[in-house]
């Protein structure tokens, strides 16, 4: 057992425990934020320290230390750091539970990092639950009616989806007799596709796996929890789960389906088709429902369902494209960075604005452009990126995903996706219009703290940087798309 390969995760675990212990014995709670950020920084250093050891299997092939996991570890650490910085003011609402808040964020991050690295079904399940259970607890942190409702809904639906996922894993295990995903692939290839068709259990297992993971990424029709959780849960937590949980779900889907079910080709065409159908449903229903929303957090909830739809176009490409082609995977990774930046930025701006106006209704956003020009400008840039317009990251991300899909004969799917992007512009721009062109209720300024401004600045600049100079991160995404098969 080589524990050095696990140092980033162990660092987060130790930090989480340290935060819980410190919370019991010190009275200056601001210190907890510093310790959490320090832990994330050390984990980043350790992640980079493993850069020379990439492409190897650890712990009897249960974990992969490869480019793909390296990319997601950095992404999750970055997301967690942004969320912790953005919640420095917000945590005062949690009264006696600030230590638990930080510890749970760190443990959820740890679970997501393991999700990106696992190559074995049982470890997949354990790491998924580590992340999920922390998020269930976090959504109920405000302890008011709506927050508790969202936590209970999230937990019950999450438990059902876990059951579905386990059923799928059991069927896959039943057919192949293996839990390690490389060995599953070997077993499927050995038996041949025609034999598999006589035995529908594998297809059933794959369908149930799609359903179980579909809950994590908020794909239609497993999205029931999204609007209520987004509305009720604390805003920084919503930001965290909307990008972190979704990215982790996509990480595990890409690794599992790419490694275990890529061959024979007729099998990967099958699940590619499933994801294409889910993509259409997600985009159409997500966008159509978002139009009617009056609460901005619910609106972003439906928007995240639609964004999952665009990402599913990438997964459909992954199923249909030849396995050696890198474009399907790298475009998903690129889209995930762009989505993480834009969505986090939007949520940070919402935290800052609703701190003052104490409302999440879009009509109360009237005239924010005059009351807080910088906040409104950053929110506008993030929303434009979510639409996918120039010169932001969202445009480039959608361009690469759609480009990959067209090259592999999914033109019909891309036409639907582009039409949906046009529809989505309507509801995103409605918020922008309310902020800049509607008359404000009062002319009082909206103040924001340094920490909020800092994280907002980083996300907004990141969105613009990725939109104007995409080469750097695109090269990184292509490098990170190398998934180790063993």
């Amino acid at each position, binding site marked *: 057992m080589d524990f050095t390969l696990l140092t980033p995760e162990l660092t987060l675990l130790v930090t989480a425990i340290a935060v819980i212990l410190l919370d*019991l014995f010190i009275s200056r709670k601001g210190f907890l934020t510093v310790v959490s950020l320090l832990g994330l920084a050390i984990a980043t250093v350790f992640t980079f320290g493993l850069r020379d050891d990439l492409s190897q299997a650890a712990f009897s092939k249960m974990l992969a230390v490869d480019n793909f996991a390296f990319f997601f570890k950095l992404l999750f650490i970055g997301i967690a750091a942004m969320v912790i910085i953005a919640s420095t003011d917000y945590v005062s609402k949690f009264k006696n539970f600030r230590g638990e808040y930080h510890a749970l964020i760190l443990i959820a991050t740890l679970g997501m990092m393991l999700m990106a690295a696992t190559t074995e079904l049982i470890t997949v399940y354990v790491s998924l639950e580590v992340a999920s259970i922390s998020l269930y607890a976090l959504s109920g942190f405000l302890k008011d009616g709506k927050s508790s409702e969202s936590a209970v809904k999230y937990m019950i639906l999450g438990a059902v989806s876990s059951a579905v996922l386990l059923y799928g894993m059991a069927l896959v295990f039943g057919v192949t007799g293996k839990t390690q995903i490389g060995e599953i692939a070997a077993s499927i290839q050995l038996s041949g596709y025609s034999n598999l068709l006589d035995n529908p259990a594998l297809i059933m297992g794959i369908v149930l796996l799609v359903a179980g993971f579909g809950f994590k990424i908020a794909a239609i029709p497993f999205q029931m929890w999204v609007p209520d959780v987004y509305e009720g849960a604390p805003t920084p937590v919503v930001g965290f789960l909307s990008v972190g949980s979704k990215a982790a779900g996509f990480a595990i889907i890409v690794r599992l389906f790419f490694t275990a079910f890529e061959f024979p080709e007729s099998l990967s065409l099958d699940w590619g088709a499933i994801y294409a159908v889910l993509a259409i449903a997600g985009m159409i229903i997500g966008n159509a429902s978002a139009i009617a929303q009056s609460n901005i957090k619910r609106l972003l909830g439906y928007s995240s369902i639609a964004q999952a739809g665009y990402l599913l176009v990438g997964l459909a490409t992954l199923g249909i494209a030849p396995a050696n082609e890198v474009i399907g995977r790298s475009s998903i990774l690129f889209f995930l960075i762009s989505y993480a930046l834009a969505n986090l930025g939007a949520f940070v701006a919402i935290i800052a604005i609703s701190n003052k106006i104490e409302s999440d209704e879009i009509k109360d956003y009237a005239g924010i452009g005059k009351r807080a020009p910088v906040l409104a400008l950053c929110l506008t840039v993030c929303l434009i990126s979510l639409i996918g317009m120039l010169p932001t990251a969202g445009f480039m991300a959608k361009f690469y995903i759609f480009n990959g899909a067209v090259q592999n004969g999914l033109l019909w799917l891309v036409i639907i996706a582009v039409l949906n992007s046009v529809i989505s512009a309507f509801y995103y721009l409605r918020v922008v219009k309310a902020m800049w062109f509607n008359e404000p209720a009062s002319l009082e300024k909206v103040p924001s703290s340094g920490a909020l401004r800092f994280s907002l600045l980083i996300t907004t600049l990141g969105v613009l940087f990725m939109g104007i100079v995409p080469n750097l991160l695109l090269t990184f995404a292509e490098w990170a798309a190398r998934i180790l098969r063993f």
Partner: protein
Amino acid sequence: MLETYGFVGLFIIVTLGFAAIMILLPVALRFLKVVPHHPTSVKNATFECGMETIGKTWVQFNFRYYFYALLFVALDVLVVFIYPWATQIRQLGYSGLFVIAAFMGIVLVGYLYAWKKGALEWN
């Protein structure tokens, strides 16, 4: 392809049919007068045999037991994990000892947390 998914469809039909039959069977038997309907107080009792029931089902437990139940579950899980280690203690050597010590440390932090937060006080 169609044949494969046909099995799934067949499975769904059989499942739904089985559930429907199981729900409708008692109703149908009652309707056809196969099952007689003569309720008595003994027949309507909660249990057919055993002790006679006393009082209502909605008994109130003291809410504070819930903390102890949670703490007990944590201890239970600890024992479940230590037991297999203890049987293989020689083969697993120092690395096994280290892992178990780390695991116990984490659980210990949990108990320390419960203690400091006052979960063990009875008030």
